[in-house]
């Protein structure tokens, strides 16, 4: 036998010349845990506000499947984007471009988790939730990552739908169906995505330009991007009041959505009026865009938390 016995045990092993051994944290990093946290939270909210009852074990399984599927999308995305990740400063230390994980292993990991999450969701929870979960994975991988991301500045507008599915999946886990309220939650995340991502794209513009990713600031410039951010936020704020308007939630949510909406509009107004040169390049190192990006994350967390609190209080 090869590699067994005293000599093999005592002599130092041979280093893999191409890929050094990965650590557990590299495999966790492949799942994009920060993105996963918002996905899990919005899925949990969909599950909590849905009418009906789901056994806690099955509710946990549903949220776990949403989390694993989101992680799988992250891993497949990192596999596909490994060439541009190596160019961008923000992403070049990810496990694949840094050489800590082999691309094929990352792809296999992502596919296994994606298929596993859908199967478990289907067997343990219900087939509607599993179907939507499969659709969201396919949308993120094929529509956003493979098709849109490198082709059009509308990539995150259409691709944003992938991130809007979790509350629908959470809702479907309980009810086994999809109706108006989860579609409103879907629309909220869908319209929230462009101002969120374009705020990031404003201050990561140079990275995207170097990598050749046609994000809106790269293609249309900073001025147009700031205008588009303002337009989408103006659409978003009244949309967030729809759950109250249709009688699904009460005053707690309505007040929270209004206050948060005003906060988001103020934040976006600062982005729109940022000091900039004639070409739209910020003279403040995109400080307002950085603030708006951070605020947008807190905004969605608090908005959805308010919806759940309102359901339990009301």
């Amino acid at each position, binding site marked *: 036998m090869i590699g067994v016995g005293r000599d093999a045990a005592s002599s*130092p*092993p*041979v*280093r*893999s*010349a191409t890929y050094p*051994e*990965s*650590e*557990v944290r590299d*495999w966790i990093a492949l799942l994009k845990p920060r993105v996963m946290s918002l996905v899990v939270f919005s899925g949990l909210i969909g599950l909590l506000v849905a009418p009906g009852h789901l*056994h806690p*074990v*099955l509710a946990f*399984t549903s949220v*776990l499947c949403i989390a694993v599927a989101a992680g799988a999308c992250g891993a497949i995305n990192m596999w596909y984007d490994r060439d541009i990740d190596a160019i961008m400063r923000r992403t070049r230390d990810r496990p694949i471009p840094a050489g800590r994980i082999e691309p094929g292993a990352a792809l296999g990991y992502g596919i296994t988790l994606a298929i596993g999450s859908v199967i478990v969701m289907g*067997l*343990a929870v219900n087939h509607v939730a599993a179907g939507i979960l499969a659709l969201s994975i396919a949308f993120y991988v094929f529509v956003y990552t493979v098709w849109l991301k490198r082709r059009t500045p509308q990539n995150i507008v259409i691709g944003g739908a992938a991130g809007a599915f979790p509350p629908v999946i959470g809702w479907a886990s309980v009810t086994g169906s999809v109706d108006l309220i989860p579609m409103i939650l879907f629309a909220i995340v869908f319209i929230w995505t462009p101002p969120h991502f374009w705020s990031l794209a404003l201050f990561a513009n140079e990275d995207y330009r170097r990598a050749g990713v046609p994000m809106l600031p790269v293609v249309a410039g900073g001025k147009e991007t700031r205008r588009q951010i303002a337009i989408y936020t103006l659409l978003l704020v009244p949309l967030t009041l729809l759950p109250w308007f249709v009688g699904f939630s009460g005053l707690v949510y309505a007040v929270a959505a209004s206050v948060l909406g005003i906060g988001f509009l103020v934040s976006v107004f600062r982005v729109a009026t940022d000091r900039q040169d004639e070409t739209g390049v910020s003279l403040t190192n995109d400080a307002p865009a950085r603030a708006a990006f951070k605020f947008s994350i807190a905004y969605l967390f608090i908005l959805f938390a308010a919806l759940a609190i309102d359901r339990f209080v009301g």
Partner: protein
Amino acid sequence: MFQMTAPPKMTEAEAADLRRRQKGRNVALLLALLGLSALFFAITIVKMTHR
């Protein structure tokens, strides 16, 4: 004809680091499998008792 070259050998410190990483991955995999087993067991019990 391909010429076979021996891969570079590791130092003792590198070998120790390699084993630490391998052990970390093995423990993580064990915990994942145990967690999955416990989850499947719980799902089965719930499905059987809440028909």
